[in-house]
């Protein structure tokens, strides 16, 4: 009787988790495997018919200058935005962790960029940065920082504009995560440091920062993955405009190959490469962090 009950409980468990497993398989495992499979084929994105080409897509990309440029642009974009998000995020979190009048209002305002839909944010920024009629150039010229308007959406500054917009849009995530951890740091640690004569800067480096290590590990990992695969912000900024060439990161290039060249095979190959880059980078990151922990 007991065994029967146990078996039945197992069966019930399997039945209960099977929808979730089915969902994970159909929405996660299957698309990934299909993408890998597709990368070995030459296939039109929408019409039937495909031809097995083995590693030809991979070999083609290795000798393709546009591919290497997209890796370069993607790296510049993700590294610079992550560094700036972390630095600004920690500074902002330190400020709003202090008690001052209107603190709750400032905390709310800080979250604002993160809740605005990307499309709205991009439209707003495009007009702010417009080189002929934009407010940013107007203000910079009014206070004498520049003499001539800057072409923010042109070739020379489009990457800077993209980085500014992305940092503005996503640094609140760092603020939230870091602030949450800061609020749990025991005040006794600061009191002890103060007794030892540590000033605010030493307190930050010797108390706050070590306490933030774990949360920063996760934040850097997540933000790296998200920024390296970021598509909407990058694409919407130019939508195929002339300067698009200068911010053609890997996700944008994969999209173009799939939906503009209609080369689903090459598009999938790019996606697989992106996936592999992320897996390898994450593994290295984990290994480095573990080694540090051991030390």
């Amino acid at each position, binding site marked *: 009787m007991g065994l029967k009950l146990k078996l039945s409980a197992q069966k019930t468990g399997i039945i209960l988790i099977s929808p979730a497993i089915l969902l994970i398989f159909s929405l996660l495992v299957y698309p990934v495997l299909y993408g890998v499979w597709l990368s070995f084929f030459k296939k039109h994105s*929408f*019409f039937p018919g495909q031809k097995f080409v083995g590693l030809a897509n991979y070999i083609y990309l290795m000798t393709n200058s546009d591919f290497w440029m997209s890796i370069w642009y993607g790296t510049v974009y993700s590294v610079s935005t992550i560094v700036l998000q972390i630095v600004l995020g920690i500074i902002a979190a330190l400020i709003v962790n202090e008690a001052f009048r209107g603190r709750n209002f400032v905390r709310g305002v800080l979250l604002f960029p993160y809740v605005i839909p990307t499309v709205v944010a991009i439209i707003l920024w495009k007009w702010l940065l417009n080189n002929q009629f934009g407010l940013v150039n107007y203000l910079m010229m009014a206070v004498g920082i520049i003499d001539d308007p800057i072409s923010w959406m042109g*070739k020379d500054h489009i990457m800077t504009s993209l980085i500014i917009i992305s940092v503005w849009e996503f640094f609140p995530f760092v603020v939230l995560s870091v602030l949450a951890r800061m609020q749990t740091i025991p005040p006794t640690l600061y009191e002890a440091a103060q007794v030892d004569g540590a000033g605010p800067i030493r307190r930050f480096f010797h108390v706050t920062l070590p306490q933030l290590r774990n949360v920063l590990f996760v934040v850097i990992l997540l933000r790296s993955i998200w920024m390296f695969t970021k598509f909407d912000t990058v694409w919407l900024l130019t939508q*195929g*405009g*002339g300067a698009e060439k200068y911010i053609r990161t890997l996700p944008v290039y994969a999209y173009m190959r799939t939906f*503009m060249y209609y080369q689903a095979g090459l598009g999938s190959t790019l996606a697989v490469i992106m996936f592999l880059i992320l897996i390898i980078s994450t593994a290295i990151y984990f290994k480095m962090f573990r080694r540090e922990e051991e030390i």
Partner: protein
Amino acid sequence: MKMQKKLIMIIGFVCLFSLILGSTALAAKKVIHVWHTETNPKSREAIANIVARFEALHADIKVEAEALAWGDLEGKIMAALAAGSPPELSHGQPITCAALHEKGLLLPLDDVVKAIGEDNIWDQIKKVGKYGDHYYGLVHAAGTSLLVYRKDLANKKGLKNPKTWDDLLHNAKELTMDTNGDGKVDIYGLTIPGDNLFINILMGELTKANGGILFDDRNRPRFTDKKMIQILNFLKELTKYMPPGWEGHGYRETFANMYGKKAAMMYQGYGRGASLIEQYAPANMANTDYFDVWIKPHGPSGTKPAAQVDEEPWMLFKGCKYPKEAIEFLKFFYKDENYLEYIQTVPIHFFPITKSLRKSSAYHATPMIKKWKGWLDVQEYYLDNDLVKPTLVVDWEDMAGKPYLMEILGSGILKDMVMEVTKENVAPEKATAKAQKRAEELVKDRGYAKW
């Protein structure tokens, strides 16, 4: 408590009953799906009115008209075709129509043409969707690209309609001005959009105007030809008189440069822009004394001007549910009284495809048409003299013979080539060689290479 329970049950039953009744009524109707690209409120309203009148006459048909942004359309059509559930009707680029016809995915619209009267349609229009003896695309309206210029400024400088590219460069130089004497340019000679679509349109136009071709009979790209080098050298020179950052300007921003008094000429203007000028330019300037159009110049190897024609055909898809009903809807759409309402929503850009409407007094009585007549005259000149072709089409035979132009447009190969020369100072010979290689790869990949 019991009463409450009863009441809830009654309400529930009533809701369920109405839902079933409503869905049954809807299911009994034949729903035809119509995708179009006229997203402006006036055109949407006109289409809604036409649909309402059509539905009033056909109680068993419901028309679901959906306005889509250009950028979304091609992908949506392709995805719908791949899923086996295409709409009945959709707008599309002429080169998309060519690609879909070549793959056997379209149904003929001969009955619509017959209802309008084949002789009643302008010859230029017929070339867009006619394959063999059948029409697989029928243009909803035609509008050509225009060289818009500030007439007041040009008159002050004594500038004339440029005949050649050298003349245009001269005009652009003359119109690049420092008007307030602070040593800085505040009006640039010329503005063009940096968008992929518009650069492709521009390259098609310039190739035609310079007597060149983009692809030969064997589908091999001809990007390294001397004529293409001339085009790129011309563009490099021209960009000296364009606002900094022009490559980041979209179509609307380019028009903003015009009515915002930051540029004196616009190479890729359209009649649609007359509405923008009326809306945003200072009231005293919103007329042809300030904003007029010139006939476009030709290149050193060409003899005739060339422009692009924006004339998306309606397409009827094979595999749709109600093709007959869709044909009935199109016949109704092109009836003079309905068609006029649609045309009047963007009157300077929508040239009617029917001779009867273009000659009618009702059409000519439209206030905007009276006001911007010069803009229409130039378009009519282009259309009647066969000086305009759809995007990337250099010769009418390209429509049927080069079904890969859609992919060439999407790939951005031409745009990248232009950017390399004008923004990165790459030598035209080097940039064209790179573009040639990319285009050859794409044509080969699509299976059209015959060299």
